[in-house]
């Protein structure tokens, strides 16, 4: 009887681990931080990246110790602009607590000045890149297969590069903060 009970517990634990793994999707590849560490760029500096550049930013250094928050936005997106002050505050509050933040604008290249102007207005300090790709679909799929491109979109990666939180549409600040708190403690 004891043996049957032990087997049941082992089975339950195994099933649970499988379930947990299937629920937690992996980042495309490990998430790096050298380019997305704290204070790496001034607000108005937007670096232009292509698909490979974006993938590299989402790659994680094996020695990385900081979770990574990635927010996709565009200057034409109302919801993105509305949530941005909350994201700036989250960046300020959590940078010293061990969170890296990467802001990705999907504005067209010719709209970079509008994006830069918005970031200045927001007094944003997190690193910002502009994704410059002719076809957005490969980039959207490279970031997350459950994402269809609706903006804004926010992803939180743990230090191993797993997506531990994703949100499409305007963030709920308290919900995001709770997810960050949980991830930083891990």
């Amino acid at each position, binding site marked *: *009887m004891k043996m*049957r*009970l032990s087997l*049941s*517990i082992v*089975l*339950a*634990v195994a*099933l*649970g*681990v499988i*379930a*947990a793994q299937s*629920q*937690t*999707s992996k980042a495309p590849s490990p998430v790096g931080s050298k380019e997305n560490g704290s204070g790496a760029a001034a607000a108005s500096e937007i670096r232009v990246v292509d698909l490979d550049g974006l993938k590299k930013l989402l790659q994680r250094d094996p020695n990385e110790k900081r979770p990574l928050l990635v927010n*996709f936005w*565009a200057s*034409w*997106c*109302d*919801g993105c602009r509305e949530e941005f002050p909350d994201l700036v505050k989250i960046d300020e509050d959590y940078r010293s607590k061990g969170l890296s933040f990467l802001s990705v604008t*999907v504005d*067209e290249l010719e709209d970079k000045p509008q994006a830069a102007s918005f970031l200045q207005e927001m007094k944003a300090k997190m690193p910002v890149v502009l994704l410059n790709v*002719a*076809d*957005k*679909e490969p980039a*959207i*799929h490279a970031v997350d297969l*459950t*994402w*269809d*491109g*609706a*903006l*804004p979109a926010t*992803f*939180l990666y743990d230090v191993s590069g797993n*997506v*531990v*939180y*994703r*949100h*499409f*549409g*305007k963030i709920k600040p308290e919900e995001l903060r709770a997810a960050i708190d949980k991830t930083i403690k891990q």
Partner: protein
Amino acid sequence: MKKQYAVSLLVASLVVIALAAVAGSGRTDNDVPAPPTIGTVIDDFKLPDADGKEHSLKSLAGSKGAVVIFIATKCPVSNAYNDRMEKLAQEYKAKGINFIGINANNTEPASEVKSHAAEKGLTFTILKDDGNKIADRLGATRTPEAYALDANMKLVYHGRIDNSQKVEGVTSEDLREALNEMLAGKAVTKTGGAAFGCTIKRVS
């Protein structure tokens, strides 16, 4: 008794582990249901147009099918497609496929939908999905987002209209290709496509 205890323990363990797995997983969306898979027959539905007149999907569909597109009045991406949507609608109406717009944004009232359509020259019927029931049923998340249905209301394509918000950058007309294949009686090769768009403003 011991057996009962073991079973209870097993069930409790499974519940605790399942809850932990769910709590640790990434949240998927703002609780938007998953869209129907390609090949699903879309059940008929009724929605009012901007004047309040009710229409059913079947009554608006053409003899060869229909294209349902979630659109917006304020979304710059949706607006960038106004001319392309109207052009496609007129072209394919002549071929038996009718375009139907749906505005599911709770921030854009019917009066605004009506004036926007008049101003932008959109002549296809636009329905107002107050409460986003049909957006939920179709798992629509953004504007513009298209669903192509064949004559039997079977979903053959779901996704973007083409690959570029700017007309000059268009190199892949995914919706058009899907419609052409459908009209030719062929299986649709590319049944979907992702693109950046504005999140549908749902009721909270």
